């Protein structure tokens, strides 16, 4: 028994040490720093309690960021989840081409978003972009999509949905595949054979757990949006697209307001932890079900 104990320590020891160094200590540092007034390269830090948090929450710029992030998440999540479900429903009814469709719709999730953002930028270019040209052809005036305060965030939302839908779709496809076909047959014989009826009678009850799971995961992804902001808008115009993670990045590595960044990070962390805990709970429940 004792030999096994040593084996255990030997096998897990390196991970434990590295985890301490690379994850636990940094985490504690972030939380700790948020309660100080430290700036990188500045004098020794002093504890200031919740001052940074109070400043942050009172700062209209941060409030605008939080609002923008919330709006972004509240648009991307239903969009990607709903579209993913619709696509999954359509694909699962196909006899041929399933694999091809699955690949095509999943591609945006894989393709490097930074590179794809450049492609989107060209597509949306105010003068020669395809979108504006098509709109002008039908008489609608062109818009500078990424530089107009009213449209910048919706554009990022669109790209976010484009990016995440395939991800949601893949999970829904798996859930739909697990619905027993005999239930669909029984529904047809019982007189509930129409697609709408069968969806509510057979499909929806079966995919409830997966739907919740997908919502949680997509929300977590949406919360961590950084690439599109960094490449396309850098937070502008004005504060329209200053999503949370971009704000944290700027505070920490552009302005070096380290303690403010730490406070914002902690807030971000709380949201992520809530979602992560939900994800674990839901994942465990699905495994047991």
């Amino acid at each position, binding site marked *: 028994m004792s030999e096994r104990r040593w084996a255990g320590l030997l096998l897990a020891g390196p991970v434990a040490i590295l985890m301490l160094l690379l994850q636990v200590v940094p985490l504690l540092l972030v939380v700790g720093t948020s309660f100080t007034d430290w700036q990188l390269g500045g004098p020794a830090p002093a504890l200031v309690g919740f001052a940074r948090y109070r400043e942050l929450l009172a700062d209209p710029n941060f409030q605008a960021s939080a609002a923008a992030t919330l709006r972004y998440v509240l648009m991307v999540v239903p969009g990607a989840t709903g579209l993913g479900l619709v696509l999954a429903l359509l694909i699962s009814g196909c006899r041929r081409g399933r694999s091809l469709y699955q690949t095509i719709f999943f591609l945006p999730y894989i393709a490097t978003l930074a590179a794809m953002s450049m492609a989107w930028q060209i597509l949306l270019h105010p003068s020669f972009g395809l979108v504006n040209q098509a709109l002008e052809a039908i008489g609608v005036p062109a818009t500078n999509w990424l530089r107009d305060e009213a449209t910048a965030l919706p554009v990022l939302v669109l790209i976010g949905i484009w990016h995440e839908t395939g991800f949601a779709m893949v999970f829904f496809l798996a859930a739909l595949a697990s619905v*027993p076909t*005999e*239930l669909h*047959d*029984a529904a*047809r*014989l*019982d*007189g*509930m*054979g129409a697609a709408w*009826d069968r969806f509510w*009678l*057979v499909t929806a*009850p079966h995919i409830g757990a997966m739907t919740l799971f997908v919502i949680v995961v997509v929300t977590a992804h949406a919360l961590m949006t950084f690439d599109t902001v960094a490449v396309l808008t850098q937070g502008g115009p004005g504060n329209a697209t200053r999503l949370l993670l971009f704000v944290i990045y700027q505070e920490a590595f552009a302005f070096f307001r380290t303690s403010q960044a730490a406070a914002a990070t902690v807030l971000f962390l709380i949201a992520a932890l809530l979602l992560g805990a939900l994800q674990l709970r839901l994942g465990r429940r699905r495994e047991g079900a």
Partner: protein
Amino acid sequence: MAKLEIQGLSKRFGATAVLHSISLTAEAGEFISLLGPSGCGKSTLLRIVAGLEQADAGSIRLGGRELAGVAPRDRNVAMVFQSFALYPQMTARENIALPLRARRLTRLQRLADRFRLDGASRCVGAEIDRQVEALAHTLEISALLDRHPVALSGGQRQRVALGRALIRQSSLLLMDEPLSSLDARLRVQTREEIAQIQRQFGVTCLFVTHDQAEAMAVSDRIAVMLHGRIVQLGTPQEIYRAPRSLAVAEFIGSAPLNRFALDLPPDGTVQFGEVPLGMRAPAQAGKSVTLAFRPEGLRLAAAGVPATVRRIEYHGAEAFLRVEHAGRTLIVRTGAAALPAIGAPIHLAPDPAAALLFDVEGKRVAIEPLREPAHV
């Protein structure tokens, strides 16, 4: 109840032909089993009758009405599935009521009735509830009506599935191996109940199974299916005693068939080893045939074919002896009193009336006693 007429039904999936010109008639109120090994096409046939698949050719008439192009819900057909296919989110009551609610209430009314909003739909809903309760009483599941399928045992779910199928009083009841997910003891008990309910309701029933004992126990007639064809349609007795082919003979019957390949002499007399049976098959004179006996067709006797007992399978009221004769193993059924010992030499007397003779292609051929008049 109605008469079911299937004519020339064919189906292929891609390049594989699954059903070859199937024809079958079930009289009103008759219980017909579709019996066959897995892959013989019986479930496909059932699904086509239900309207869940389309046939490539052929026609199906129920009560004189052609079913081609008619949606499953309008065919007046009900089905019990192998996995029961109960909606897990609904109670037993709601499961059984669903076929009625789907037909008598529109979608809006269903929604309104659920929340008890609309008076007219409440009336219909109440009437439906009464019917459900009456049927549940007949099926003895009244106490289970408010449970969800997950809280029911296999046998209980089976009855709820049956209730859902019977509630509409359809002309035809289809059952796709409804007993295969039950344990052995429950299976025997449940098949009796199903047979009884079918008689009570008088509904024409098409029952798919791969278990020949099950089919023989409950059916009025059995359609034996092999490789997408009905190879024999008849009563259980006909199929057991007069199987049309070697394949059917081997498929039916709990114990294995004893079969011997032999070449008949020019005069067509049939012998079992050195023992003449006193039977002949003139049409097969000089040809290769297969002679077969079921285990009960070989009896222990004082004289006859010599054999040695190798193993005894004791079944309480009877026993199956595995005996060795001329290097091959035969199976003999006998009463359990006065069993011989293992290794003991015995003699087997074949019963000529139980002899089955098949030609070189496996078709059964006539065999008659040597003395006139012949009667088999």
